[in-house]
């Protein structure tokens, strides 16, 4: 049975008490401002996000909505300006550069959109996978894991091939192996299928799902690709630097996938109404709310003059 809005509200307030208590990824009111000599760009404007361990989550949003910034923050490459960002219990704001390095080495792995940016072209696949291990100073005997990972992701035959000798899909799967090299708890992928055709995308996504299921790694994918977005358990929508909606998928009684879209209510009660809803009812500037016994009604402002209507 679908949870009612009040149940969701109850859940939201419950989580508020221990926001991100035992969750794997916790972002609370996360803010990231890019600033150079007086010019400011606010990329994240108080984003909230909670992802549990072992989840496979897609993040979708329009270009410039802050998806990539969020991913950079979570991967430890970028430092947020304010708010809370916690991954596996580590606070990403107060981390020292040394801790951040250790975090990047052993807690998180990531995959960029551009296949060429993920891999060093003059090394073969195995060497590329071994690179993060070497950087982290892993003992030599652990490096056999590189081949295991390539095998797991179905690209074992590429082990001794140089990067330009592989197809785009193979490159991305090797990139996933590289991200998994140091057994991270979390993998972040920024549009991993952005440059691939649908069939290859499927393979790459399958590889990510394999990592998620077999290695128990939490996977967060930023994507535009509806194919990917429709296959994950949870899709988080981001708009203007805030999480705006969530789509949950679960198996229905007959084995069919049921997707339900929710709006996200933040800790102070802010809610983003979907733009097409607002447009349909011509909602602007203010709306009227009415609390009913089991829901809240949102009405267009009655006194609004209607002469602007076509």
């Amino acid at each position, binding site marked *: 049975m679908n949870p009612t809005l009040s149940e969701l509200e109850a859940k939201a307030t419950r989580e508020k008490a221990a926001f991100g208590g035992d969750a794997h990824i916790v972002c609370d009111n996360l803010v990231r401002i*890019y*600033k*150079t*000599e*007086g*010019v*400011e*760009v606010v990329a994240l404007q108080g984003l909230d996000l909670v992802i549990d361990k072992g989840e496979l989550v897609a993040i979708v949003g329009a270009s410039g909505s802050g998806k990539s910034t969020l991913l*950079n923050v979570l*991967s*430890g*490459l*970028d430092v947020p300006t304010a708010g809370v960002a916690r991954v596996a219990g580590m606070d990403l704001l107060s981390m020292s*550069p040394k801790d*951040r*390095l250790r975090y*990047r*080495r*052993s807690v998180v792995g*990531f995959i960029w959109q*551009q296949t*060429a*940016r*993920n*891999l*060093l072209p*003059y*090394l073969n696949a195995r*060497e590329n996978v071994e*690179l*993060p291990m*070497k*950087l*982290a*100073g892993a003992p030599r005997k652990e490096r056999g894991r590189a081949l295991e990972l390539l095998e797991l992701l179905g690209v074992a035959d590429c082990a001794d091939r140089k990067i330009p000798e592989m197809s785009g899909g193979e490159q991305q799967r090797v990139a996933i192996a*590289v991200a998994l090299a*140091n057994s991270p708890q979390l993998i972040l992928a920024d549009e991993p299928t952005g440059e691939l055709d649908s069939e290859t995308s499927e393979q790459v996504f399958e590889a990510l799902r394999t990592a998620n299921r077999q290695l128990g790694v939490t996977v967060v994918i930023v994507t535009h690709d509806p194919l990917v977005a429709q296959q994950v358990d949870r899709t988080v929508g981001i708009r203007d630097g805030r999480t705006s909606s969530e789509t949950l998928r679960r198996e229905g009684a007959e084995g069919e996938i049921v997707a339900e879209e929710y709006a996200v209510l933040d800790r102070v009660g802010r809610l983003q109404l979907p733009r097409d809803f607002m447009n349909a009812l011509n909602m602007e500037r203010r709306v009227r709310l009415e609390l009913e016994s089991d829901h809240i009604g949102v009405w267009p402002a009655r006194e609004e003059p209607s002469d602007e209507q076509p």
Partner: protein
Amino acid sequence: MRIPLPARVHAGTLAVLFVLTALACLLVSGLPRATQASFDRALQRALDSAPAVQSDLTVAGETRSPREDLHDRAAFEERERRWRALLPAALRPLVTGAGHMSAKTSLTPVTGTGGQTYINLGWLSDAGRRVEWVAGREPGAPSAMRFRGQTIPLFEVGVVEEALGEMSLRVGQVRMLGESDFAAVRITGVFRAKDPTDRAWAHDQDILHVTRLLPPGKLDFEFHTTTLMSDAGLAALSGGARNLTYRWVLPLDGRAASALALPGVNAGIAEFSRLLTLQATTSAPYRLETGLPKLLGDFDAALATARTVMYLVLAGLLAVALGVIVLGVRLLTDRTDQALALARARGGSLWQVAGAGAALTAAAIGPAALAGYALAWLVPGPALPVAHLGPAFVLVAGVGFAAARVALAHRAPLRERRDDVAAARPSARRITVEVLVVVLALAGAYLLRARGLSAGAGQDPFLLLVPIALTLAAALVTMRCYPYPLRLLVRLTARGRAAVPFLGLTRAARARAAGGLPVLILLPALSVSVFAAVISDGIAGTQRLASWQRVGAPIKITSTVEIPAATIDRVRATPGVEQVVTAQTGRVQLGYASESAEAVAVDVAQWRRLLDGAPVGLPALPGGTSALVSPELRGRGTLDIGWQSRVKVTVRGVIDSVPGFRSGGKFLVLPLSVLTRPAVNTLLVKGDVAPAVLARLVPSATVETQEGALAAIRDDPLTGAVRATLVVVTVALGFYALVAVVLSLVVGAADRAAAVSFLRTLGLSDRQARRLTVLEVLPMVLVTALAGFGLGLGLPAALGPGVDLSSYAGDLPVGDYSPDLLTPAALAAGLAVVAVLGAYAHTALNRRRSLSAALRAGELS
């Protein structure tokens, strides 16, 4: 753990870096060696060409009591060993050859000649080697004789050939010496020098020649000669009764001299002198006689200037070479940027990333520095500290820059450049620093001009700092200011219909500060090479001037006696001779007093024709009884001179020098017609004729040519070294400037390719794309070339008082810099053209890149 950055992936860039570094190290390590070697050669020549009496170390001592007399050769040799043992370490390598010893009396009068004739007693340790006996026999042991009731020693001596005639001496003669303590000499033989040119004779001119002196107020000459006695004669020679001086000559070997050791040698001489005075007793004081300190002092003065110029251009060269290497390193780090960023993001620590960048750079720079350093060993010359430190510095600077740049770039693991976040204007801090540099440079230049060179202070660091600061200031001003006039141009082109000029100039005007590095390299490269060219030109011009000053005509024939008219006609008739001007020189009496002056009687109008086109000249002389006089004779109006007859001449002008004759003192130039019977002793010849031919025609004369004088001035090793270094540095800087332009183009290639590709999707043609690139680079190259040209021309003027190059230009001050702008202008223009051609070629080569690849490259960068 190291990050794999295979060298072969970046082979091209590494090869460029290798060549640049090897060349820089070769120059930085080799040029100081070559110059130092030439300094050494110059010092050796200065020492060798100086008279031995000036350069050798002579220990002299008078004996004043019979107890201090040395009566046999062994005693002399014992003393010589003692002096050699006292030699300070710095002098030992210089004093290697066998010297000689002498004992000579001075002012020993022949009894009863009233102080007119002096026969000194002398002994030379190496007489057997240096003289041959031409008459009589070698002197033997002394004996004794009775004279005026006393027993006096009778020395057997030999006299020089010259004394036989001059002093009426003959073999077998016995002469009494002394006025109170008597001695006698019997002349047993006559000698002459086996080799009169032997340097050792400089110490014993009194033995080799009869000295004629005209004492003040006397009418008759005094004659002095010094005889030679045998070793046995020493037994009877005593300082008790005579002025007896012993000398030990320690000859200096100029070939072992090194300009580097000069301060040590000077200190060594002072120390040796002090040690000698400590050896002295009251009755036998020993002292050091040598002209070495003055000789070395003169040389040092010339050397100081050469060093200053050398260090100036070498510092400029090093700075430019480093700049270009830094540009190369920048290219390399740009190319490895992506791999390093990936490694950094995937968990590489800052140390690992910076280390990888530095290691890759070192892979090229390290072997290159070694190769350059090793090659520099092929350059003959002593290795100065800078020869070792220079390559090390290049290595450290290159690798350090790579490490620092990589570390700065990857300090944060993710570098995200957002197009929507851009700096609006330069920071106040930067502007303050730039203004400070400019103000300091100008103040420094002003102070240097106001103060001049601190004489005798050795190297003047201020002199080195000011040009560097001026160059930096000019570069900063250029970088800061050149977009402004460009924006005006852009406005003009915006109205025009053609898109390419507008786009190209706009891109040039909006170029980021990344364009600063080429400016920082190009400007010093141009200014130093123009500076070198100007100095080189200045020296060449002044050398030419000095040669004309020295000779006064293409060929000058000077005779000691009158040249007969028939000979003059023969000279005129010699094939190749175009013009002959006759002149008479002599010493003339001024007025009726004892004042005299040097006079030149010559047809000035003809002489002026002869000097047509030469850098020297004379004012016109109307003829009749007019004269040109030296500044010392200024304002006398009419001069009454005695030359053959009494002549009254009117002063028509004052000149500083008469080319080829006088440059100082009292002199006058008169028309040849003033003389009643001219006795021509000088011919000024113009024409293409061998000096040897003329010398045969006029046997009594010496023939000098202006070209010969010029060659003599140029032949000086110091001068040659300065000019050669300037030429090498100019060429090297030209090369570096070219490389700087090409490298900066390559550094910005990806960015430019993206822009051009974008424009080509809008319909830009290939030709237009090439023109666009050229237009984009052109303003920077042109403005920098102009600024560098101006700075290079201005530097000699700014440093004028600090750099005295007169010792390289025949002792004329090099002051009039650059009457000829051609060389520097050609240099600047050539460089600009080559730079533009480089830009054109670069775009032409890039044509092969596909549009999509370029666009993708732009996206990624």
